[in-house]
């Protein structure tokens, strides 16, 4: 099955980003296709390479980057939501790209399911 993933909350404060990451990883391991992961609202903060949690905590930003490197998962950050929150190309962790909301709509069109992770 083809999944589009929408992440609406930032990392660390909410479980949503962790759940989205775990779902995406599990779907790939089960042989499903991820059309793309789209980051909206505070979800754009998942792409901030300056995130530096304590060493005994999971680093969700790095986990997303690793997933993109290993499986070619497309990680798209909404430009309008990112600009509001001070995220730009200089701050993007590896594997993330900034693009428009059309990428979210397209994920809904192409995918068999669009799965939202939010509050």
């Amino acid at each position, binding site marked *: 099955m083809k999944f589009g993933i929408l992440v609406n909350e930032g990392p660390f404060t909410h479980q949503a980003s962790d759940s989205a990451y775990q779902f995406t990883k599990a779907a790939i391991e089960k042989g499903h296709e991820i059309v793309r992961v789209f980051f909206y609202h505070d979800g754009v903060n998942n792409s901030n390479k300056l995130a530096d949690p304590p060493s005994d905590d999971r680093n969700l930003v790095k986990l997303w980057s690793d997933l993109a490197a290993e499986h070619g998962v497309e990680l798209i950050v909404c430009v*309008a939501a990112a600009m509001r929150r001070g995220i730009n190309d200089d701050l993007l962790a590896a594997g993330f790209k900034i693009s*428009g909301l059309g990428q*979210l*709509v397209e994920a*809904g*069109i*192409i995918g068999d399911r*669009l799965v*939202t992770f939010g509050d």
Partner: protein
Amino acid sequence: MEDFEDDEFDGPIKKFMYVNRKAPYGTVYALEGLEVVLITAAFDQDVSLVFVDDGVFQIKKDQETTGINMKNFSPIYRALEGYDVEKICAEKESLESRGLSEDDLVIPVEILSSAEISELMDAQDVIVTF
């Protein structure tokens, strides 16, 4: 609103439903959710909009926001018709429990019961809640 090229998309048309559950101010979900609705309409998709819970306050008339230093974005809902977004409904129970009626709203909506909205949801391809 951001720039987009709506004439470049030549794919299938799906039924997208946006479920607005939250008050217009206090969190950014309603405002940023509305941006997604407009972009989806620009992709010529079959868009429905539902207002439930505190989401019904998003389309309440006479919003006065200067005191909280927020832009009153409720006029944008009146522009939805121009984007061919005409399937708009509000949940009867949510309106009633908040003392609201159709006359209190900035746009005409279809007022449906929770059960009727549930049926509408069953017919969608994509449902996104903001």
